[in-house]
Structures are given as C-alpha cells and as structure tokens.
C-alpha cells in the first residue's frame, strides 16, 4: 500500500519540533533546549520534556538549599509565595521533604542494541575529519550509505546484500508504516526522534542549514535517519510504536509544586533586590563636559564588569549594543579559506567581509605567509605520520622526547610558556595589524559572489548599519574625540567549549572583526554626511576605533596601526593606560569568583592569575562566561551607572525619549532580548539537569567527529554546557538558575504595542519563559510587572509594607487595566 509521502514529511516536521537543534561546538550557539515547547506554559513544557528526555525542569533541592543558606531567597517572599498555595511549613522542613522525594539514580546501565547500532553509524557518517578512513559512500546520503554497510554489520539477521533492504527512504517508510494507521505516525516519529536527542538535534541543525559544506557533501535529513532507525527497529524486533502510556505527553496535574514555588520566590527575591539597587542608583548628573572617550561593548553580562571599571578611570562613557554591531556578515580571516558566520543565530548573514593586507603592509603579509606555510607543513607532517600504518612506530620514537618536553612545559609553567610564545609571536607580523576588512565591493567586472553573498558592503548598507547602531542605542549627540567599538572573545586552550565563551551575537566567534567593520564604516566621510542628514551629527574630530575585550583576562586590545595612529599618540596612550587599570580592577573582582586564593591587595596578581587561566591547558574553568545571568536591562546607562550588578545583567543601551515610534525598542525586544532568553534558558536547563540538557563533566569528555562531545566511551552526543561552566565545584552551583527578568525603561503602551505585533515574543512572557518589568517614564519611572496573559502589576514601593494580597498569575485584583496611561 503506497503511503502519502507528503503526509510522512509533514508528520516528521511536527515531530521534529520536540527536538532542539544542536550546533557543532566550533560555532557553539546558545539556544533554549526546549525551544519547540515555548508555545506552552513553562511548567507544562518542562513536564512534557521530562517525559520525553527524562530531564528535570526545576532546580534540585540542593540548589535551593544553597540559595536559601546563602540568603538569596528572601524569607518573606518565600513565605508569601508558599502561603498563596496554602503551604505553611517552615522552609527547612520543605527542603528536607524535597530531598527525600528526589528520585534515585539508575544503577544498572541500559543497553539498547538499536541505539548502539545507530550511534555507531551516526558518529561514522557525521564525522567531520577525525577518522582517516571515513565511512564509505557518504556522498549518497545517510540511508544509502547505511544500506551498503548493513550487510556486513551483523546487527540485522538475514541481510546479506544491500538489496535485502528497501531501495529508498520512501520504500523504507512504506515497509514499516503500512501496518500502522496514519494517526499513529507522529507519535512513532516523536518516540524515535527523542531517543537520541543529541544526534537527532545535530541532524536537525545540519539538514536545515543546507549551506554547510559537510551537508552538501554528505547529505542527511531527519527522514533519512528515521528510515534507517525504523528499518533497524523493525528487523531487530525493537518496538516501533511507543507504549500507549508514554505515547503523547499528558497534561498531568501532579506538578512539582514545591520547586515551582521556590523558583518563583528566588526570582522575585532577585528582582526585588535589583529594583531596590536601581532606585538607589546615584542619580547620574548629565555629563556637562564632552567625555574623553566612549566605548561600546556587547550586551554580554561580562561587559557590565569591565564597563563599570572603565567608567571609574575617568571621563569615559560606555554603551551596550549587540556584539555583532548590527553588521550581518560572514567573516573570512586572513590566510584561511573558511568563512565563519559572524552574526546571531536568528539573523542571516548578508555580506562577506574578507581580511586583506593593507597595501603599505604587503611585506609583512608576505613574511607572515612564509611562516604560516611552514607551520601548516609541520601540522600536516604530524598528522600524516600519526596515522600512517607503518611509519608511526618510528615517528613515535623520534618525536616522543619533544612531546615529553612540551607536556612538562605546558603543565608546570603555562604562564611562562605563554609569555615565551607571545614574545615570539610579537616578532612575527600579525594579521590583525597588517590587515583591514575589505568593505568596498569589488568592481562589478570581477564581482565575486560566493554562496550568493556579496563581498563587501554597498554605500546604502553602510549608512543603514551605522544609523541603526546609534538609533538603537538612543545615541544621537555628544560624540567624544575617540569612540571605540569593542567586540569580545575568550582565550582558552585545549577547551572544546571555547566558542561558548566567545561572542554569542557573533555565532560563537570573537567580535573584533565586526567592531572593525562598523568603526571603518563610521570613519567614512560619506557615511557621516548621510548620518548628518538624518540628524546624527558626528563632529569631524571624532575618530572611531575598534578593539576587542579578552573576557578571560579583561585585557582590551585596540586595532590601531601604531606607525600611523589615527588619533594623537598621547590620547591613545592615555586610553591604553586607563584600559590597563580597568583590566587590573576587573580581574581583581573576577578572580574572587574563580576557585582561587589571590592576594587582593595586588591587582597584578589577579591579572597574572587570569593570564595563567587563559594559557593553561589543564584549566577547566578559564572564566565564568555568562554564568550568573539573570536580568536584561534595556535603557540608558544612566539607570545603572555606578551600580555593581555583579556581572549578572545584559545591558542594552536605549533611550525611550529618542524613539518615539518604538521601532528601536521593537528591534531590541525581538532581537537581542530573544537571544538573551536563549542564552538564559540554556544556562538554566544545563544547570538544573546537566545530564539531559547539559554536557556533563569536562573531565570525562571525549570529542567526537571534531564537532561535538560524548561522555566516556561514546553514545549519544551531549548538548548544552559542561558542568565546569556552571558549578563552582561538583556540589555547588555558580550559575543561579533563574529565568531571565527583562527590565525595560519605556512607556507601557509602547511595549504593549510591540507585544501585540509579536505573538511569539508575548508568548515568552505569558508562558513564563522569562519575566518582564517595566520602568514606566509615564508613571514617574515606577516599576510595573507584566502579568501572564496581559496587564500590569505595580511593584511595591520600598517604603510600603509588603502586600499581603495574593499575587498569583491571573485574576489578580491589583492588576492594572491594560489601557495605557497617557
């Protein structure tokens, strides 16, 4: 009986919603592992996901106990939240009860032959260059390639030649599905797609990003995967359809009520403290004088720390903007063939920017090329010798001594070794110094259009990106003589998760190249003229520079040609000195959070410690990344200036007064804020269940296929963040798993209009994937909280007694009318 292929395809699409896409580690992307569940209320989503993946949806009792003992959960708030649900026991009693109720762990390893066969062939098919001898026939696609290896595999009895298996994917589906009614197909697909969520997540990512070279060379889709899996299951006698009971996640009512209340109380406690702080912020008098310098940083939570310390150095202003600086581009670093995407996951690149040596630096580039060629020859030599069947034995003997020496040096003197490497590198020209991003499109005659992306930017595009940057930040006047766009990147060797510490807005790459592009654009006279016409008047003496913030050491480097500096050398020196002091202060603050005893009186020791972490191949916690993130503040820096926000807030500059039609806010709330929510949920879920949604401990990681990690001997691909990115030690979390609180300074009617236009965004708040608090300038900057389902609830003023009225979602008597106040 022929089956309707379009129905199969549609059912697979539906079923695939349950699986989160998994990016390769090289371009690690923060994403909500339960993205496909965001159309449901949070508590229901985590329950369904728990049934499918076995993952926990709320922090465990130990995490709550830690927060409780550290005083992070306000006793009054908790008591009130519990009372709303009729619970009156003491918190300590409840903690004990939650611990007693915690399910035990499996003790017997499960062994499903079906999963075992599949992980073996998935790892082989999806390998991106680890095996010297890859799986045969990959170019024919997963199903066809598997069909040729299956006869020798022994997993399926009675298959002696490929023709014993269905010819095509469609026939494979027919053979298995014909005995099931159409209504059962989707549950069957869900059952099989969620069995190995790591690998299927990666297949999902790859099949939907058809432009990757690996997908083009070795195509795989979820349908091909399912065809293999169902055929195998059928022939191996494994279950095709799930048990009726686990078939579709049910909407049960036995919610984990206590964890849900505790989490809410913890979030409210954090929010209350944050808002109290904001109220007490030193009311920043408008800067009378023109600042000496202005620096624009990524909205990343790590920028908050360094910005605070830079501002303390003197007459500096800082701004927050998405770290790809609004330029949706692909970047081709000098001397490489590969192009890396350098914009957020929700944005498609529109330009290709190539680094080209500046004419005056051609000699340096040639010298660099010579050494780079030599280095590549060495790498190739090592690689080929390592894998050669006969030559490897002699090679090991001849090179062993060098490996021993390198091992001793890297382990015993990582800092010294890195200083040595640095001083050697300084003798060589660096592409950062001799290259410039090529912005002008090549002449039409030889216009390169690769992957259909135009090389360079048109004049219109340049003006567009420059204007968008200043409009979104609400920054239309007061330009200092020096303005620095500062991207950020991490520095950490031997770390599969390096990209998770780089700029999330640049698809897990350092943001320096994007900063250079925007700085170059803003220095062009034609762009400035166009901006002037649009009301953004940049003085002629303002110079835009680009820099990069090393988030591991807090060092900020400036991309400036020191032989021909664009600003006065004295000004540049002063800026560099101030950035150095800021680095020392920021490093001193940060090392206290990293398992380290450093003499706090000596900032140099702190800097040294961070530099050691940046160079140490044994370091599993080079820095905390975005751990701790809890709030996303949209508003002018004046709101938060002078406050210590502990590196827990995303800061996006915005001025409601310069954004009358709300376009800028709309862009911020549908772009950077959503990315912030993805980052936050990834940290949240990786923390609350590091096995199901995170990747476990780094100490037993095993990199597979050059693209991801498995634990130990292999199996399913791990996703999310490793334990060491989230926990201070095996027992104490460092990342406090709170859902993001978005705090926006803007009139509520403007926000309501935006939510009305963007249902998926409103849904994130309505379904409590994140919370929204507004500082309403129309109400004298009073704080109001968005109520699930619409409506606003005022934040109690600090002088007023704690409200006793229930504040549960929906039906709250104090909820304000949605009608905007003029």
């Amino acid at each position, binding site marked *: 009986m022929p089956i309707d292929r379009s129905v199969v395809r549609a059912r697979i699409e539906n079923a695939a919603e349950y699986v989160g896409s998994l990016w390769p580690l*090289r371009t690690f992307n923060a994403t909500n592992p339960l993205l496909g569940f965001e159309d449901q209320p949070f508590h229901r989503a985590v329950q369904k996901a728990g049934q499918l*993946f*076995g993952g926990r949806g709320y922090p465990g009792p130990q995490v709550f106990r830690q927060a409780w003992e550290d005083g992070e959960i306000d006793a009054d708030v908790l008591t009130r939240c519990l009372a709303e649900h009729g619970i009156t026991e003491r918190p300590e009693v409840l903690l004990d009860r939650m611990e007693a109720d915690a399910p035990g*762990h499996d003790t017997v*390893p*499960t062994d*499903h032959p079906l*999963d*075992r066969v599949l992980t073996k062939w998935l790892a082989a098919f999806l390998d991106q260059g*680890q*095996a*010297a001898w890859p799986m*045969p026939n990959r170019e024919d696609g997963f199903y066809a390639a598997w069909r040729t290896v299956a006869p*020798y595999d022994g997993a399926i009895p009675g298959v002696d030649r490929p023709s014993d298996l269905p010819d095509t994917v469609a026939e494979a589906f027919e053979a298995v599905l014909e005995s099931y009614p159409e209504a059962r197909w989707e549950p069957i697909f869900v059952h099989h797609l969620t069995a190995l969520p790591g690998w299927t997540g990666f297949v999902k990512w790859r099949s939907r990003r058809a432009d990757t070279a690996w997908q*083009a060379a070795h195509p795989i889709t979820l349908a091909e995967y399912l065809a293999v899996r169902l055929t195998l299951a059928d022939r191996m006698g494994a279950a095709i359809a799930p048990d009726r009971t686990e078939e579709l996640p049910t909407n049960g009512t036995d919610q984990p009520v206590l964890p849900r209340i505790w989490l809410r109380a913890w979030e409210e406690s954090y929010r209350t403290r944050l808002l109290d702080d904001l109220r007490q912020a030193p009311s920043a008098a408008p800067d009378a004088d023109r600042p000496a310098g202005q620096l624009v940083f990524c909205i990343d939570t790590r920028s908050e720390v360094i910005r605070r310390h830079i501002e303390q150095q003197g007459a500096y202003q800082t701004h927050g903007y998405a770290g790809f600086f609004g330029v949706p581009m692909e970047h081709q670093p000098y001397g490489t063939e590969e192009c890396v995407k350098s914009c957020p996951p929700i944005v498609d690149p529109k330009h290709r920017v190539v680094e080209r040596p500046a004419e005056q630096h051609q000699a340096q580039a040639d010298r660099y090329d010579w050494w780079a*060629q*030599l280095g590549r*020859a060495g790498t190739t030599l090592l690689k080929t*010798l390592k*894998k050669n069947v*006969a*030559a*490897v*034995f*002699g*090679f*090991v*003997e*001849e090179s*062993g*001594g*060098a*490996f*021993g020496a390198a*091992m001793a040096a*890297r382990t*015993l003197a990582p800092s010294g070794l890195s200083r040595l490497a640095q001083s050697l590198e300084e003798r060589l020209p660096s592409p950062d110094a001799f290259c410039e991003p090529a912005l002008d499109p090549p002449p039409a005659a030889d216009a390169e259009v690769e992957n259909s992306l135009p090389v360079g930017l048109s004049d219109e595009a340049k003006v567009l990106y420059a204007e968008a940057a200043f409009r979104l930040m609400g920054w239309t006047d007061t330009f200092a003589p020096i303005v620095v766009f500062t991207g950020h990147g991490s520095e950490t060797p*031997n770390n*599969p998760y390096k990209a998770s510490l780089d700029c999330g807005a640049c698809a897990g790459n350092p943001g320096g190249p994007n900063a250079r592009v925007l700085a170059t654009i803003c220095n062009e006279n034609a762009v400035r003229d166009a901006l002037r016409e649009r009301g953004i008047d940049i003085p002629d003496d303002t110079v835009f520079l680009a820099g990069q913030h090393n988030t591991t050491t807090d060092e900020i480097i400036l991309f400036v040609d020191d032989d021909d500096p664009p600003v006065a050398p004295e000004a540049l020196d002063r800026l560099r000195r101030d950035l150095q002091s800021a680095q020392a202060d920021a490093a001193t603050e940060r090392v206290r959070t990293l398992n380290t005893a450093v003499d706090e009186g000596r900032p140099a020791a702190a800097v040294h410690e961070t530099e050691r972490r940046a160079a140490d*191949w*044994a370091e*599993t916690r080079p820095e905390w990344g975005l751990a701790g993130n809890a709030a996303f503040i949209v508003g002018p820096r004046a709101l938060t200036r002078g406050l210590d926000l502990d590196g827990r807030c995303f800061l996006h500059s915005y001025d409601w007064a310069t954004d009358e039609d709300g376009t800028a806010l709309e862009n911020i709330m549908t772009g950077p804020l959503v990315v912030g929510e993805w980052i936050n949920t990834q940290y949240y879920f990786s923390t609350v269940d590091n*096995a*199901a949604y995170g990747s*476990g*401990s780094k*100490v*037993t990681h*095993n*990199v*597979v296929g*050059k693209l991801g990690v*498995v*634990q*130990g*001997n*292999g199996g399913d691909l791990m996703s999310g963040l490793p*334990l*060491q990115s989230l926990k201070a030690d095996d027992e*104490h979390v460092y990342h406090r798993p709170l859902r993001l609180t978005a705090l926006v300074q803007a009139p509520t009617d403007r926000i309501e209009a935006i939510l009305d236009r963007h249902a998926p965004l409103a849904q994130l708040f309505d379904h409590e994937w994140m919370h929204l608090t507004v500082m309403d300038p129309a109400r004298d900057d009073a704080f109001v909280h968005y109520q699930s389902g619409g409506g606003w609830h005022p934040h109690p003023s600090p002088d007023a007694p704690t409200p006793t009225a229930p504040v549960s979602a929906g039906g709250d008597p104090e909820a304000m009318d949605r009608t905007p106040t003029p």
Partner: protein
Amino acid sequence: MSRSSSWLPLLFTRLTWGLFALSLGTLVWSPNLEGAGDVLLRVDGLARVMALMTTFVSGIVHSFSRRYMAGAKRLNAFYGRLFGLTLIVLVLTAANHLVLFAGAWAAMGWVLADLIGHVRGWPQARAASRYARQHFLGGSVLLAAALGLLGGGAEAWTISGVLAAVGTLPTFVVAGAAGLLLLAAMVQSALVPFHRWLLSSMTAPTPVSAFMHAGLVNAGGVLLARFAPVVFELPVVMSAIVLVGGVSALLGQAWMLVQTDVKRQLGASTVAQMGFMVLQCGLGFIPAAIAHLILHGFYKAYLFLASGSAVKHTAPGRPEAPGTGVVGGLVTAAAAMGGGVLFAVLTGKSLTALNSGTVLTVFVVLAVLHATRTLVRRSSLSRPVRIALVPSILLPTLALYAGVYKGMGMLFVDVPSAAAPTALTPLHAVLLVVFGGAYVAVERGWHRASTRLYVALRNTAQPLSTTLLNNRDQYNAH
C-alpha cells in the same frame, strides 16, 4: 568560590615530584640493598629507568589534575589512588621477591580498575571498571601461575634466583611459564585479543587515561623485560611474541584509521604501539622496547591531556597530494637510506650483518621515508625550503631517539638478557612484507575499496556495550 579545599592533593603532588627527584638520584647512585632487602627489592637499571619514567608521568598527571580536577567530588580518593598506583608501580619494577611482584601486579590492576570507575554514580563507568577488573584479575592469575611454575621449578622465591636457574629448568616448565607470562603481558598491554578493556576505559577522567596509556599498559613490556631470560630461552616463544606484537601493531593502527572520537582513536593507537613494543621484545631488543614504551608514553600522555583541542573547523574532501617528482623521489630515497644508516651507526648496529636488529632499522627507515615524502610533496613551500627542512627535522629527532636508545643500553648492563638479537627468520621477512604492503596499500588508498573491511574494523574495536552512554539520562557526574 570553592567551599572545600584539602591539602592532600598538594601533598601527593609534592611527594610524587619528590619521588621523581629520588629516581633521578638513583641514576647517579643506586642503593645497594644487602641481605633481606635484596630478597624483596633489587634496584637495577630497568627499575631505575621505569621509576624515572613513572614518577615523571605521574608528576605531570598529579600537577595537571590540580587544575583539571578542581572542584571534583572525592578528590582525595582520586589523589590517593593516583599516588598509590605510582608507589605500586615503583615496587613492581624493583620487586625481587616473587610474591611481592605478584602482589604488586594484582594491586596495580585493582587500583587502576577503580580509577576507570572513578565516577561512582555513573553506571557506564562502573561497568567499564568491572570489565577492566575482570581482565586484570585474569591477568594476575596467569602471572601467579607462571611465577608458581618458575618458583616451584627453580625452588627459589626471588626473581633473581629463578632467572639464574632458567638453564636448569625442564623445557616444559620454561615453555609453560613463558606462555603464561606472555598471556599476562598481553592482557596488561591490551594486545589483541585482550584489547577491549582498554577501548572501554574512556570513562576514566582524562588524566587517568594519560597515566594509564603512558604508564600502566607498559607493565606488559616490563614483565617481558624482567623475565627476559625465561622468554628468550626458546625460539618458538620469541616467534610467538613477534607474531602477537605484529598482529596488534597492524590491527591497532588499522583500527585507529576508522575511529571517529579522539580518545578511542588514541586507545587504538596504544594497542598498536604496545604491539610494536612487544614485537621489539620478541626481536630480542629489550632496551629498544623500553625506549619505545618511554617515548610512546610521553607522546600518548601529551595527546590525551591535549584531547580537548580536537574541535576543529574542517572542510570535506582532501586535495590529492601531487607526486614527488624525480628530484623529490631522489631526496626521499636518499633521506630514508641516510636515516637508516644514521640510526644504525648511532645505535651500534651492523650495517652488513642482517639480524633481527635490521627489522628495527627498517621501521625507522619507513618513518623517515614517509616524513620526507610528506615534506617534499608540500608544493606550497619553495623547493629549497623543503629540501632544507628534511635534514633539519630528521637529524635532531633521530639523534634524540638514538640517544635514548643508547642510554637504555648503558643502563641495562645489569639486566639479564637485555639485548639478544636473533637471526632473521622467515617470520621476520613476512612481518616486513606485511608492513611494507600495508604502507603501500594505505598510501594508494587500496583499503578503501573494501566496505567489508571497514565495517569489520569498526565493529571489532567497539567498547563493551554496557559502557556506552546512549541514554543521556543515565549520566551522573559524581
């Protein structure tokens, strides 16, 4: 932020480096144990070299783990076992009493299996630990049987006593003991068909893997070296060792070709290298085997500790390397010959008389040949650079290796039957032909024609199925 800190890891790390310093000291002056001490321990060249090697790698692993394992639960237990294992290995290499030797051997396996399952709450790690422990227990029984046979036959309680009496023992005792010793060595060094415990051991924290692959799997080689007079007594045993080693060397390296994860790839490579090391024993070159296990130890420990660096952006397909051309071909041939001659001269091998040492030289020649070919084909470099690179890379590396090799020979003057080259046999010829053929086949890509071979290699190097984490929910980091 760490809420608990302990001084034990630091103490054990310092003690290990202290032991390293002591081992270094014994190279200059070694204790002459009189009387009762000599019955228990005898510090000869082999013991000193292995002590130096073991404490060095262990010191690195201790120091590395201070950062790598920071914050881990049961850190004191981890360090206690790591340090205990180091002591056990020191005792093992210096033990003279048969019971002490067997006891140390069994204890080594027990503690190592424990470290493979260091993550207690993780069922897959426990399964891997159990699996390794079964192997080690079996190996210990084989060893105990061999020692019992030897001790009973020679009526001696010490290794030195047994070895002195080998010539007087009946052939069946020597053959039986040698066979049992070989089997015990094969289990410990994860040679085919006992390789699977090693390929299932990646549940161990990375530093443990580094120590295991650089130190503990070597014990098989140390066992053969220690009992060289027994295993060298019968040519048929020598041939068996060559065969066993050769099979693992070839198969391990073939397995490595098809592995897709970095740690199992390194594991397959260890099987191959241990095979080669045992092969060197079978050729009668104990110093060469010990030099190999030391240099391989450095190499493999480094690669394990650096295994986090394997995430890379890569592109599918590889450009075909251009041919070497006439000049390149001449350079390659000349370099390979020159490398072989240099190695032979530096290590004092005869260039004209063919014996089992020739086999060793051929492997050096193959490495030089391949390195030179790779460099010469590198068209992105200018020809003078390419030609200049060949000697500037090969000379120092060959000299370094020859130096280690010679050093072993000098240190092993007091080790019985350290070097006993044998005459070339047809087996040696077959071995050379097989490896030469494998080299050509892989270079030409002939192996890729067989899907059957690919699947067979992929399947025979699978870990124990219960040690695979297919259900992520079962993972537990503690």
